[in-house]
């Protein structure tokens, strides 16, 4: 089938829905998602959204900007960060006006709480900056935006899996989508396409990410000729629930929880004397694994997150969801017992390079790809640099999702409609047919498991040249093995085996890009820690990595405006 819309948004998480709400009244828009509405992974965000609205104590956007830049280990582009943090209060009030039921403080204003790396007066002490809805902020904002989409009758293509982007003459004209419910292939033409497809945490064995976070959008852009930026910067959240990797929100520490080693010691005092447990995530993840390496962890490789002194009332009011997870999955009650936690792959700071309007940039001289936009986790503006601060990701999706919406609304007036030939559809048919006819001894589940273990062992919190080099070789061999995969399920309806084979192709490509970017960056910065190069090297590496299709690596300068790189101590 053939469909046509002015604007097509891929992904129904916060960035996609926010963009949709922005342009629905001015354009014919549609949202394509491989899952049903409200199942997108933004919903798993727990802790909150940061904004310097100062409801609890004095705060300023300059402080928020400084924290974000310092958190990024000075790799974020400061013009973009400034846009984001200055827009943050507007974002919060806008969400409140839409109906987001924010938690309230005693005077009836939006409550705010502490979060890692967010400080007052340029690092002096933690500041309460995170606006939240208990520990279900992402889900509730997702629901509210979905409700707004229903109100404005946004067209959805649910359970449609995008197979390719149609890019011709440096311009995006649409996409090919596979309807999971029927097995049909659809050509969806558009003047503007927004990729809002989220992250790729499922490349790693231990992750907080959902099954759908396979990085499809990142690699669709890459396959269509777009470089990927700063992909070595993969965030490991310090407190994944052991052994599942499910997120235990930083909100726990924001509300006062403490990390303890097997001696009962509050070890973060040694790693971050000023803000302790509220240091940036990369710092805390390394501290946890250092404790484990030095024999002060618990058997299996975890530490304790202690909430027991917070009291049941506060825990149930502010941390209901994580309390429920711990009770269900571990059978222990965090009101009375500490929670076993260890770092879990959580977020990719890198992604599809864009300008502050979401326009996709195809090279280091910032050439715009007409008709193609990206926002949210799959995009790299870059506001998170080498390490994202907690609660800045929801902010990112809402600020830059909206800006992409505004830009698309404006741009479509200038973009002519280009009908797409049958060729992309024919190619997609061949791809599906080829996959279904493929014969060989390999199984998707096994290759995927190998990839996930390999990335965990070779490219997680601690890295070095030897391990990255071996990782690269092994990923390349897994890519070869993927060619010999046989898909047993030949059915038309909800053939997830077929979809997972395609997803795995994306994951392996991205794993290679991550390894290659990490291999080339011979310094330590933010989440990228090289044991063979443990210091930051601003002389040689204060720059963004760009990996082009085919594996060429080039670099792009970082925009520094207000805050010049200095030692990063918490």
């Amino acid at each position, binding site marked *: 089938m053939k469909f046509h819309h002015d604007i097509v948004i891929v992904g129904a998480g916060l960035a996609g829905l926010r963009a949709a709400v922005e342009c629905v009244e001015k354009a014919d828009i549609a949202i394509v998602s491989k*899952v*049903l*509405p*409200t*199942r*997108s*992974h933004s*919903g*798993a965000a727990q802790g909150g959204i940061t904004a310097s*609205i100062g409801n609890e104590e004095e705060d300023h956007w300059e402080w928020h900007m400084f924290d974000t830049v310092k958190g990024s280990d000075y790799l974020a582009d400061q013009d973009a960060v400034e846009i984001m943090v200055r827009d943050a209060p507007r974002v*919060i*009030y806008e969400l*409140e*006006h*839409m*109906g987001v*039921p924010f*938690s*309230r*403080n*005693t005077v*009836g*204003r*939006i409550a705010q709480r502490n979060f890692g790396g967010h400080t007052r007066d340029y690092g002096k002490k933690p500041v309460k900056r995170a606006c939240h*809805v*208990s520990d*279900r902020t992402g*889900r*509730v904002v997702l*629901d*509210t935006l979905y*409700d707004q989409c*229903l*109100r404005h009758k946004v067209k959805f293509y649910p359970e449609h899996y995008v197979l390719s982007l149609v890019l011709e003459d440096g311009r995006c004209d649409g996409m090919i989508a596979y309807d999971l*419910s029927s097995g049909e292939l659809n050509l969806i033409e558009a003047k503007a396409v927004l990729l809002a497809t989220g992250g790729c945490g499922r490349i790693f064995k231990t992750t907080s990410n*959902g*099954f*759908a976070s396979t990085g499809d959008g990142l690699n669709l852009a890459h396959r269509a000729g777009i470089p990927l930026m700063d992909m070595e910067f993969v965030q490991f959240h310090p407190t994944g629930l052991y*052994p*599942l990797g*499910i997120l235990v929100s930083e909100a726990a520490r924001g509300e006062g929880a403490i990390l303890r080693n097997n001696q009962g010691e509050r070890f973060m005092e040694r790693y971050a004397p000023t803000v302790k447990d509220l240091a940036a995530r990369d710092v805390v993840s390394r501290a946890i694994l250092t404790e484990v390496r030095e024999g002060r962890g618990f058997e299996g490789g975890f530490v304790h997150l202690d909430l027991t002194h917070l009291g049941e009332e506060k825990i149930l009011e502010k941390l*209901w*969801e994580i309390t*429920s*997870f711990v009770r*269900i*999955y571990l059978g222990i009650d965090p009101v009375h017992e500490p929670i076993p936690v260890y770092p879990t792959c959580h977020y990719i700071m890198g992604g599809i390079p864009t300008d502050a309007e979401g326009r996709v940039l195809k090279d280091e001289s910032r050439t715009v790809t007409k008709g193609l936009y990206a926002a949210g986790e799959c995009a790299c503006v870059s506001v998170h640099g080498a390490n994202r601060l907690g609660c800045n990701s929801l902010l990112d999706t809402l600020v830059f999702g909206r800006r992409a919406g505004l830009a698309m609304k404006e741009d479509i007036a200038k973009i002519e409609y280009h009908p797409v030939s049958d060729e992309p559809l024919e190619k997609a048919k061949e791809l599906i047919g080829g996959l279904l006819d493929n014969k060989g001894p390999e*199984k*998707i*589940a096994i290759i995927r498991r190998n990839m996930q273990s390999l990335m965990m062992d070779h490219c997680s919190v601690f890295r070095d040249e030897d391990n990255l080099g071996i990782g690269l070789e092994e990923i390349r061999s897994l890519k070869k093995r993927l060619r010999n995969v046989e*898909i*047993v*399920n030949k*059915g*038309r*309806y*909800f*053939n*997830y*085996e077929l979809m997972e084979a395609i997803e795995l192709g994306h994951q392996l490509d991205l794993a290679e890009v991550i390894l290659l970017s990490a291999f080339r960056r011979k310094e330590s910065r933010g989440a990228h820690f090289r044991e063979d190069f443990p210091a930051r090297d601003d002389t040689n590496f204060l720059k963004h990595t760009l990996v082009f299709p085919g594996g060429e690596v080039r670099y792009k300068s970082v925009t520094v405006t207000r805050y010049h790189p200095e030692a990063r101590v918490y």
Partner: protein
Amino acid sequence: MIMNFRIFRYDPEKDDEPYYRDYEIEADPKDRILDCLNRIRAEKDPTLSFRMSCGHGVCGSDGMRINGASALACQKLVRDFKENEEVLIEPLQVFRVVKDLIVDLDPFFERYNSIRPYLITKNPVPDKERFQSVEEHRTFEDAIRCILCACCTASCPVNQDKATEAYIGPASLVRAFRYLFDSRDEGSTERIALLDNKDGAWGCQTKWMCTKVCPKEIPVTKEIFEIKKRILESRKGKK
């Protein structure tokens, strides 16, 4: 430990009728039932279809019937069952089965949409946030835990009964409650008009199944009762 599953199967492409198939797999007591289903798919039968996304009870994708009761497969653990006990896995009731454990949720979302699931306001908004006290927020706090998994609606005897299947269902009513009792909402007249009919709040026959199965422990039946009370109060007010 060894787990035995009996799973509902139906592929419209080749089956005239649904059937059940048995699978035996090795599982760890800490595994989720969702992990077991994935293992069955990976090791035994890649044609098995079911929805999943977050894997920890937030997205609401994997609602299904486990030993007869609607639940999320990611929230039930192997250790909740006995070794060698047969675990029966079936799709949610009420909705049409599309394939295996996947049901058509379009009608669910259509009904959800019919209650006007968004804040209705009439007065202009302030520059900053509207005020809401902690107590006002608390009245609907439980309801915002809803993840639209449809377990409640699928378990409701009223929705299951052909004679009363037009009932809007507990999930829609939980969202209606969430807006009706939000102190910021100014649409209570319209909302009450939408809910004050036999297939609206009055469709509820207080069977409690929704409350029993809710994976997010929402007091669903109680909230529907509160809606009914509010409707009666508004009728009194009109007189």
